């Protein structure tokens, strides 16, 4: 009986795992098969190397994705530049410095931040961050890559903080104690012992944060102006 139960549960888990893989392959196949007909009309060379995106052109449609790739990476890179130091710093504070009470209040709030819909964040980008950036850098408008980066950083932060904090917490207690016993200050213990020990978890958290940033549509579309031109700088025009 027990053996049968074991086998059943084993089977259920195997089926679950398989299902996820099948769904993933299905999505991939669907994307590929529906996209292939497009390449009968568009040359692959134009698609990959032209920076001219204008499918609804008055004269001649063009389908180059370079400008969009460049600006996506630009915005994501900018977002990580802001979110990674801030995120790891917050995680270190929450795990090592903050009192239990602060941590218990702050952590759920940070996690709620992850649930804010992207359209709301985009709206804040238009009415709050955009005008602020325009004022600080003396520009005419704040629809640029920097605006997108700031917003995406806000969206990536909860993931980075939450997972990094978990990683820091799961570092063996004896490591920290040993370091302190050898005469290291709490700062040295944190930076030289705990952070390196939790590095793999922290990197994973940053990757997941980046995943959220790079795939985000709505926020970036609203906050960067969505012009299909090649971006000139972080403060210039930005494609989506």
């Amino acid at each position, binding site marked *: 009986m027990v053996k049968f139960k074991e086998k059943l549960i084993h089977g259920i888990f195997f089926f679950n795992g398989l299902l996820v893989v099948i769904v993933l392959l299905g999505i991939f196949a669907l994307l590929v098969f529906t996209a292939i007909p497009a390449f009968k009309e568009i040359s692959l060379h134009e698609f990959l190397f032209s920076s001219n995106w204008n499918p*609804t052109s*008055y*004269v001649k449609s063009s389908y180059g994705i370079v*400008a969009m790739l460049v600006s996506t990476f630009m915005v994501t890179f900018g977002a990580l530049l802001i979110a990674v130091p801030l995120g790891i710093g917050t995680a270190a504070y929450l795990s090592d410095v903050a009192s239990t009470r602060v941590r218990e209040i702050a952590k759920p709030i940070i996690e709620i931040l992850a649930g804010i819909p992207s359209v709301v964040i985009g709206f804040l980008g238009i009415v709050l961050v955009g005008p602020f950036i325009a004022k600080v850098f003396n520009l*005419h*408008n704040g*629809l640029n890559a920097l605006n997108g980066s700031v917003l995406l950083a806000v969206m990536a932060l909860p993931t980075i903080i939450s997972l990094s904090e978990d990683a820091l917490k799961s570092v063996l207690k004896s490591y920290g104690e040993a370091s302190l016993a050898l005469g290291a200050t709490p700062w040295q213990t944190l930076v030289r012992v705990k952070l390196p020990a939790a590095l793999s978890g922290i990197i994973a958290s940053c990757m997941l944060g980046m995943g959220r940033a790079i795939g985000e549509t709505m926020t970036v579309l609203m906050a960067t102006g*969505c*012009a299909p031109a090649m971006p000139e700088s972080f403060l210039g025009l930005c494609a989506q």
Partner: protein
Amino acid sequence: MRRYLGILTVISALIFFMSNGYAQDMLQIKGSDTLINLVQRLAEEYMEKNPKKYIAVTGGGSGTGIAALINGTCDIANASRLMKSKEITQGSDHGIDPKRVVIAMDGLSVITSARNSVDKLTMDEIGKIFRGEIVNWKDVGGSDLPITLYGRQSNSGTFVFFRDAVLKGDYSQKMNRMNGNAQIVEAVKQDASGIGYVGVGYVKEAAGVNVVKVASRSGSDYTSPLNSNDVKSGKYPIARPLNQYINGSPKGAIKDFIAFELSPEGQKIIEQEGFFPIPDEYRDFNKKSVGLE
């Protein structure tokens, strides 16, 4: 802000109806962002008078509305442009026979920041500005300031209409693609170097923006889209009819609602929303197209 409120009401209305089971009588109207506030308002007034009728109005752009009509997922498509021949063929493949009704007139308004001294432009200048050939305000009589372009996203009917009627070429790659009329008004308000185009209903009460007077060619009179006579007579060069498309001759609830839109009462609401009532030539057109005037 009103637009976001409108979207919120639509969402909450949708949730309400879903929880009540699918209402049999509910009309689905979808499409143009230029028309959404107007049709929303018409629908509200209509529902107040007919408590048992339900109408859901959603946006997305004229392209989205027309695609929904072709796929049979909406009853009325709002469109600020005409259907393309390609779309009509697609429709007949799906057994859809689109009929056009003109419900209002729009003077497509070119707007600049109130801090900008340029208050009149010719069609040619507007075309050059949006094609990216004129890039500084000093070339059209303003101060030495680079021009920032605000336009619509590509599934917008206004995007297509403005391109075909004014630019007759492609938009500059540097034009910001905004997701609605209200967003363009907001952006131009904040940006002293900005220029954009929106339906006239969006500028009537907007503070902080200039409505540019337009001449069809240099030498001819400059006219404002806020002048209803110039829009109706076609003297304002970028006037356009605002349309709704339905499948086949109107029947039942659809016919009833369109008749309300075209009635003096409906046309009065259209004027209150900042657009203009339909002139006689389009009344005749409607009569031929759907038998309503």
